[in-house]
């Protein structure tokens, strides 16, 4: 099955710093989503981005489907950005049922 790898596994930043999180996937995908899991365990949708670039405030994401990777950019980080960031893909093969395959996540800690 498709493999989803996220890097780095852990990241510590000072407040105000910028960061880039990466998601590599091993096969074509129908869908790619980025999530933020906050310290209370809630999963928050950040982006639905199977290809192209999107921006939402200080966050932006780019997916290059032909090269099988996606990047999540966080600018001017804040302590509230802390948590785990997950990339999840819906494999293209077999006809999509929306079943997401998650990476193991990047744990981000933003220090004041």
């Amino acid at each position: 099955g498709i493999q989803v790898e996220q890097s780095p596994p852990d990241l510590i930043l000072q407040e105000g710093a910028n960061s880039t999180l990466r998601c590599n996937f091993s096969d074509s995908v129908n869908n790619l989503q980025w999530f933020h899991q906050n310290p209370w365990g809630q999963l928050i949708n950040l982006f639905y981005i199977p290809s192209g670039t999107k921006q939402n405030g200080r966050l932006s994401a780019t997916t290059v489907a032909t090269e099988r990777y996606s990047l999540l950019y966080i600018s001017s980080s804040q302590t509230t950005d802390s948590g785990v960031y997950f990339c999840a893909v819906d494999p293209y093969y077999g006809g999509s049922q929306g079943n997401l395959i998650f990476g193991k996540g990047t744990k981000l800690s933003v220090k004041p």
Partner: protein
Amino acid sequence: NAGVTQTPKFRVLKTGQSMTLLCAQDMNHEYMYWYRQDPGMGLRLIHYSVGEGTTAKGEVPDGYNVSRLKKQNFLLGLESAAPSQTSVYFCASSYSVRGNQPQHFGDGTRLSIL
């Protein structure tokens, strides 16, 4: 907007007991999913449903059963709980699997099996 609501939020069971987790969505979504999250890992799909009256197995279905008798509800059952089923369970739903239709997640159910 309630979105996706999971009941209960926390539960402790003894090995061998049974229980049902309820997921309810008020967005008229066709697709519903149950995932589990274990420490240090991403979510893994247990079962899913592509519409009322349908269910299908995901990546880790053993030890679980599901039912989708009403479009808005998706139930996850543990017939005989085992310690290996200690996990956080998430329910998700989406309107479609085409176009800009992301999955929306509930807040999770923390389940401990002693």
